[in-house]
C-alpha cells in the first residue's frame, strides 16, 4: 500500500483532534482530543520513517509516547482538582479570570 495514505490518515486524525479541542467543552474530552493529535503526529513520524528509510521517526514515536504519559499524569491531576472544587469539568465553567 502507498505509504502516503497513512499520511492522509494522520492529517485526518490531527484535524479531528483539533476540531474536538475547539468544539468540545468537557476538559477530559478536550484532553483526549489532544492525545489524539499527539498520536496523529506519531503516525506521521512512523510513516515518514518508512518513506525516508531510516529509524529516526520510529525513535521519536517512542519518546512521544513517554511524554504523552507524563502529560496524562499532570493533566489528570489538574482536571481532578478542578472537578473536586466545582463538581464540573466543563471548560466553560472555568471563567472567573475574564475580569
Amino acid at each position, binding site marked *: 500500500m502507498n505509504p502516503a495514505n497513512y*499520511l492522509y490518515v*494522520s492529517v485526518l486524525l*490531527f484535524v479531528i*483532534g483539533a476540531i474536538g*479541542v475547539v468544539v468540545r467543552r468537557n*476538559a477530559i474530552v*478536550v*484532553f483526549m482530543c*489532544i492525545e489524539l*493529535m*499527539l498520536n*496523529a*503526529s506519531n503516525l*506521521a*513520524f512512523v*510513516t*515518514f520513517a518508512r*518513506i*525516508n*528509510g*531510516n*529509524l*529516526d*521517526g520510529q*525513535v*521519536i514515536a517512542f*519518546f*512521544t509516547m513517554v*511524554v504523552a504519559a*507524563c*502529560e496524562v499524569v*499532570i*493533566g489528570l*491531576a*489538574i*482536571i481532578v*482538582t*478542578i472537578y*473536586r*472544587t*466545582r463538581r464540573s469539568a466543563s*471548560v466553560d465553567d*472555568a*471563567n*472567573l*479570570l475574564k*475580569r
Partner: protein
Amino acid sequence: MVSFDIPQLSYFLLGPILIVLCGAVLAVVVEAFLSSRTRPKVQLGITLVTLVAALVQLWRIRGATTMDAAMGSVAIDGPAILFQGSILIMALLGVFLIADQQHFTVVASTLPGSSEERESLQSGEQMTEVYPLTLFAVAGMMLFPIATDLITLFVALEVLSLPLYLMAGLSRHRRLLSQEAALKYFLLGAFSSTFFLFGSSFLYGYSGSVSLSGIQAAVSSSSGNSVFLFIGIAFVSVGLLFKVGAVPFHAWVPDVYQGAPTPVTAFMAAATKVAAFGAMLRIFYTAFDNAYWEWRPVITTIAIITMLFGSFVAIAQRDVKRMLAYSSIAHAGFLLSGVIALNKAGLEATIFYLFAYGIVTIGAFAVVTLVRDSQGEVTDINRWAGLGKRSPMVATAFSLFLLAFAGIPLTSGFIGKFSIFSAAYESGNTLLVIVGVLSSAIAAYFYIRVIVLMFFTNPSEDATSVVIPSFLTSATIISAFVITLFLGVFPSPFLNFISSTATFIR
C-alpha cells in the same frame, strides 16, 4: 543489520543541566523523607546551591564551542552559554521570591474553603514541592535553546512546560483562580505542543533528518517536497509562538499571569521567554534561514499585530498583573523583530533584550508581591493610588521598572529597544521599526499613567499596605534595580561581551 553505537556524552559540557537535574531529584527525595519543620529551609538551600553550582559550571565551560557534547543533539556555543546564564540568573532571582511561602498553598490537594484546608493551614505544615518543580522547569529551559534536533527540542519543551502547569495552580489565596489558570495553561499548552510535534514530523518527512543541520541542508539544496516544508515551518512556528505569547496564540497569557502565584509568574514570565526565544532564534537562524522568504512575511505580520495588540489592550486593564501580562505580549512582538532581522545584530540585540526584559519583569512582579491587604495581594490598579507617598522606596523601584518597560533612556529597556530596532532597520524592515516605535509610544502612556497614579494621586480609603519585604525579596528588587540601571548607563561591556560570543555553530 543496524549497528548500535555507544553514545559518547561530554558530562563536563552538559554539566550545568545535569547539576540542575540532580538537584531536582535530590529535592524530590528530600520532599518525601524530611520532616515538615525542617523541609522549607533545606529545600531552599538545595535549590540555591544547585543553581549557583550550575552557574559556576557554566562559567567553566564559557569558551566551549562544539556540537559533540551529546552526539550532535545539543550545541554548546556562545548563544547557548548566554541563554543558559540568563535563565540561571533569572531562576535565582525567581527562587528568592518563591522562598516567601506565604504565596503558596499549604497542601495543594485540599479543597478550597474546606475544613482540611483550614486544618492544614493551622498545623503550620508547608508542602514545598514548588522547589523541585522549579528545578525541573529550569533544566528544561536550559535544554530548550541549545537543542539541535527535533527529539531533544520536543522533550525539552515538555520538561519545561509540565512543571509550570502545576506551579500555576499552587496559589494560597484566590485558589479557584489559580486552579483555573493551571487548567487553561495546561490545555492550551498541550494543544500547542501537539502542533510543534506535528510540524516536526513534517520537517522530518521533508528532510529525512531530525537534526537542524540536516533540515538546513535539505532547505538549501531544496530537495524534497516543499509542501512538507511549509507545513513543518508553519506548525513548528505555532508551537513556538504560543510559548512566547505572540498574538493569535496569546489567549493564555493574561489568565495565567493573573491566576498563578506572583513569584511563579515572575519566574515563568522571565525565564520561559528566554528559553522559547532562544530555541526560536536557533531554529530560525540555523535551520530555516535559507527559506526566509517563506516565513518572514507571516512572522512580520504576527510581530506587528502582537506589538499593537499588546500595547492597546494593556491600556484598558485595571489589574496590575493583567497589565504586565499584556505588556509582555507587546514585548514578545518587539523580540520577534529581532528574530525576523536574521542578522548578527538581530541575534545580539535579542539576547540583550531578553536578559534586560527578564530582569525587569522579575523586579516588577517582586514589587507586586509586596502590596497586600488582609486578603492577600492587591492587584487592582486604583488601589495602588498614593503608594509613592506611603512607601516611596517600593514605588520608586516599580517606577524604574515601568520606565524600563517603556524604553526610557538610562534604563536597560532603552538600550534593548534601540539595538533591536536598529537591527531590524539594518535588515531593511522599515515598516516593522515604525510600528515598533509607535507601539512603544502607546505603551509608554499606560506605564506613565501608573507612575502618576502612585505619586500624584491621593491614597484611596481602603487599607492596602506594603509589607516589609523579606531579606530575599528585597535582594531580588535591589539586584533587578541595580542591573536595570547599570545596563542602561554602562551597556557597552555587556554588549561587547555578547557580540564577541554570540555566533551560532551549525
